[in-house]
C-alpha cells in the first residue's frame, strides 16, 4: 500500500484505465459516464425528495409570505408536486434528457438561467486554483526534495502545514492582508484575473499541500530508482535527471489526486465564493440545499458529476501521454 497510503486520508480514487480497442474503450466509457450521471441524479432525487420537509415551504417560503390554500394547490400543480414521487422522478428524467433542468423553487426561473452565469466563474476559479496548486507543489518538489536535510525538512513541513489549513481561514487571512490592508488585490467581485487571484489561492494552498505531499513521496521514490542512476551514469546533469526522468514519474499520483480535486473544488469553492463575494456554483449549491431548492441541487449535482467524469477522462488521457505503458498494457503504474 505505498501509493495508496500516502494519499490515503484524502480518500483518493485511483484512475483506472481499461485496455482494449479505442472504440470499445470509448463506448464503455460513455456508457459508464451516463450510468454515473443517472445514478447520481437518482440518488440525490430520492434522498432529498423522500426526506421530511415539504418543497412547498421552499417555494412559498419567502419571509412574510402567507399563501392561501389555493396558492398552495396552484404551486403543487405547477411544479408537479401533486403527482406520486415516482412520476415526478420520471418527469424529471424526461426533462433532463431534453436538457430541461426544471424551475427553481426559490428563484422561480428556469434552473439554467440561474446556474448558467455561475458556471464560468466557478470553472475559472477551480481552474486557476488547480494551476496554482500545481505551481506551488512543483516548486516545492523541484526545489526541496533531496536538496539536503534543511531544505527537505522545510519543504516537508510547509506541505503538511498547507494541507492542514482550512481554506476559509486562508481566504479570510488573504483577504484581510492582501486586499484590505495592502490593497494589492480587489476585496471581492468577479472582475478579471486580479479578482480571481486571492480566492484561487485560498483554495489552492491547502490543495497544494496535498499534491505536494504525494508528488514529493513519488518524486523521492523516482529519484531512488535504478533508471535515475542509469541516467546519471550516462553523464546527465542533476536538472536533466529531475526534469527529464524523475518528474515525469512523480506527477502521476498527483494527477490522480487532481482529477478528484477538480470535482470537489466546484463545491468547496463555496467558501471562497462567500468570502470574496463571487458568483459560483458552490454558493448556489449550498444555498439550494439550505433552502431545499431541489431542482437547483439536482442540476449542480449533474454539473459536478459531469465535471468529475470529464476531468477523470482528461486525466486518463494525460496519464496515457505521460505514461504510454498504460495504453499498451492496460495497467496503471
Amino acid at each position, binding site marked *: 500500500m505505498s501509493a495508496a497510503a500516502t494519499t490515503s486520508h484524502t480518500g483518493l480514487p485511483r484512475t483506472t484505465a481499461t485496455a482494449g480497442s479505442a472504440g470499445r474503450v470509448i463506448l464503455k466509457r460513455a456508457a459508464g459516464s451516463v450510468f454515473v450521471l443517472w445514478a447520481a441524479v437518482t440518488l440525490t432525487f430520492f434522498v432529498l425528495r423522500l426526506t421530511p*420537509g*415539504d418543497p*412547498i*415551504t*421552499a*417555494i*412559498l*417560503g*419567502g*419571509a*412574510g*409570505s*402567507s*399563501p*392561501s*390554500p*389555493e*396558492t*398552495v*394547490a*396552484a*404551486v403543487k400543480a*405547477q411544479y408537479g408536486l401533486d403527482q406520486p414521487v415516482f412520476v415526478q422522478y420520471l418527469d424529471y428524467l424526461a426533462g433532463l434528457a431534453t436538457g430541461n433542468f426544471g*424551475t427553481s423553487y*426559490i*428563484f*422561480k*426561473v*428556469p434552473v439554467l*438561467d*440561474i446556474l448558467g*452565469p*455561475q458556471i464560468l466563474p466557478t470553472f475559472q476559479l477551480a481552474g486557476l486554483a488547480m494551476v496554482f496548486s500545481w505551481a506551488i507543489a512543483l516548486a516545492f518538489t523541484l526545489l526541496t526534495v533531496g536538496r539536503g536535510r534543511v531544505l527537505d525538512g522545510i519543504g516537508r513541513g510547509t506541505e503538511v502545514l498547507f494541507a492542514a489549513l482550512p481554506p476559509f481561514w486562508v481566504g479570510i487571512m488573504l*483577504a484581510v492582508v492582501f*486586499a*484590505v490592508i495592502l*490593497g494589492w488585490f*480587489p*476585496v*471581492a*467581485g*468577479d472582475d478579471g484575473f486580479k479578482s480571481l487571484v486571492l480566492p484561487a489561492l485560498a483554495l489552492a494552498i491547502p490543495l497544494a499541500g496535498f499534491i505536494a505531499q504525494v508528488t514529493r513521496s513519488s518524486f523521492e521514490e523516482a529519484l531512488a530508482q535504478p533508471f535515475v542512476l542509469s541516467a546519471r551514469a550516462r553523464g546527465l546533469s542533476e536538472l536533466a535527471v529531475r526534469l527529464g526522468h524523475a518528474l515525469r514519474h512523480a506527477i502521476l499520483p498527483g494527477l490522480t489526486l487532481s482529477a478528484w480535486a477538480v470535482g470537489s473544488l466546484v463545491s468547496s469553492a463555496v467558501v471562497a465564493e*462567500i*468570502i*470574496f*463575494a*463571487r*458568483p459560483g456554483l458552490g*454558493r*448556489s449549491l449550498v*444555498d439550494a*440545499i*439550505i*433552502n*431545499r431548492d431541489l431542482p437547483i441541487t439536482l442540476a449542480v449535482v449533474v454539473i459536478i458529476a459531469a465535471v468529475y467524469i470529464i476531468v477523470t477522462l482528461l486525466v486518463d488521457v494525460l496519464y496515457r501521454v505521460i505514461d504510454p505503458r498504460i495504453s499498451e498494457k492496460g495497467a496503471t503504474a
Partner: protein
Amino acid sequence: QPADDTFVFATGKDISCLDPHVDGDMPQASIAANYLDSLVSQDKDGRIHPWLAESWKVSEDGLTYTFKVRDDVTFTDGTRFTAEAVKANLDHMVDPDTQSGTAGGYLKPYESTEVVDDATAVVTLNRPYAAFLEVLAQPFLGMESPTALKRPQAENCNSPVGTGPYKIVDYVPQSKVSLVRNEDYNSAPPFAQHQGPAYIKNLEWQIVPEDSTRYGLLRAGQVDALDLMPSVHFAEAEADKNVALVLQDRPGNPTNLMLNTTRAPFNDLRVRQAFLRSAYVEAGINSVYFGTVTQAGGPLASTTKFYSPDFEDAYRPDPAEAARLLDEAGWTGRDKEGYRTKDGKRLIVHFPYTPAVWPTAHQALVTQLQASAKQAGIDVRIETGDFASVSEQGNNFDYDLRADYWNTNTADVLRIVFSSEYTESAGFVPNGSGFRNKEFDKIVNDALATDDPAVREKLYYQAQRIVSDNALQLPLYNQASQLAVRTDRFADLTLEPSLSLPYIYDVSAVKQS
C-alpha cells in the same frame, strides 16, 4: 474605479425572484423602489400623496376606491400606463399563481377592479381597509407593465418592467442586477428632489452577503454604497470622511422573539413574562450592535404611525420579578445545571434558528439572551437549522421562540402579526405567538374601518396594550435601513419613505476638483 456614470450598490441579502409581487422579501422591495413606481406615495410623516394616481376617492363605506391615474406615463417596454395596468397589477398580486406572500397578503380585502376608462380604475374591497393606500405606497405593490406580466412567471422574475427611473437590463442570480437609466422618466414621486431622468446613467446592484467583504468593497472604493452596514464597522465608517452613513429606522413590527403561546411552557403568561424579565436586551444591543440600532419598546417600531411609547418599560429586566413569576408558575425546582424544573422536567425553550439569514450581531444577541435566560433558570436551546426546516417548524408552531420582524408602513401590522386571522395559513404564519383574542381581533379590524386618525390612534393604542400585557413577544430593536455611501464620489443617496429603502434616483456624482 467605476466610471462617474455608474453607481454600484452592494446589498447584503440575496434576492430571489426580482418581481416583488412574488414572495415578498425585503431585498425585492429594495431594488424595486428603483425601477417601479407605485400608485400612491407616502411622506415621512405617513401622509399619502399622489404618484401614478393623480387623485382618488374613497366611498362612504370604505369599500370602493376610485383612482384617477396619469395618462402621460409609459412603461420602459413601451406599454402605456393606464387604468388597465392598475387592474392587471392588483389582479396579479392576488392571483394564487403569483405565489405572493407580502403583496397578496396585504390585499386580502381586495375584491376586483373595474376599468372605467383609460384614466379611471375603480377598486372594490370586501371589507373596509383603512391601510389600503398605505400598503399601496410600498414598492412591494409597485406597478408593473401589464404586457410584461403576461409573460411566463420565470421570465417576469428575471426582468420585471416598471415605469420607474431605471430599467433592468441584466440579472445574474446571486451576483448582480444591472440597471440602466430610463431616459423618458417623467413620473417622479413627491418625495423626490428633482424631476425627469435620474442623474446617474447606470446602476449596478451587487449581491454581497458576507458582511466584511461588503464593507471592504466600500472601503476599497469598489462599490459606492451598501446596505446592512455591519455594526462593527460603524465607528470606522463614521471616522472616514469619504463615507457617510444613511440611517433610518423602519416602521412595522420591530425585530423580536415571538413566544409561542399555543404550548407549554409559554402557554403560561407568567412564564412568558418571566422570560421577558430575564432578557437584558439593552446591554446586548449596546455590546454587539455598538449602539447602532434603536432598542424597541413595544409591538410597534417607534417610527410607525400610532406608536405609543407607553409600553417601552413594561418589561424592564428584573431577575427578582422573573424568579417570583416562575415560582408562582410552579417552576420551583432546580436541577444540577441550575435550570428550573417542574415535576422533574426542566424549563426548556426550543428556539429553531437559521443563522445564515440573520446579521452576525443578531446571532451574538440571541446567544446573549440565551445566557441571560440561563441566569433565570430557563434553558433556551438555539437549534440551528436550514431555512426550509426552520420555517417549516415556524409554520407549525413547533417552537417556543421564533425570531421575527415585519416591515410595513402601517400600524395595521398589529393585525397581521397578532390577530387570529393570521394564525392559520397554508404557508408562512405571521402570527408567531399563536395568539387568538376576539377582543383584539375586533379592535384591529375596527381600526381598518375608519380613516379618522383620532379613532385609529385610540384603537391602535388598545391593541398595543393587549399585546404588551400578554407578553407575546420580546421586542429587540427597530428594523433599520443602515446604508453607507462614498461621499467622495456621489451625493444625495436618500431613502424612500414607505419602507426606508435606498433611493438612487436623486443620487448625483460629486464634481471632482
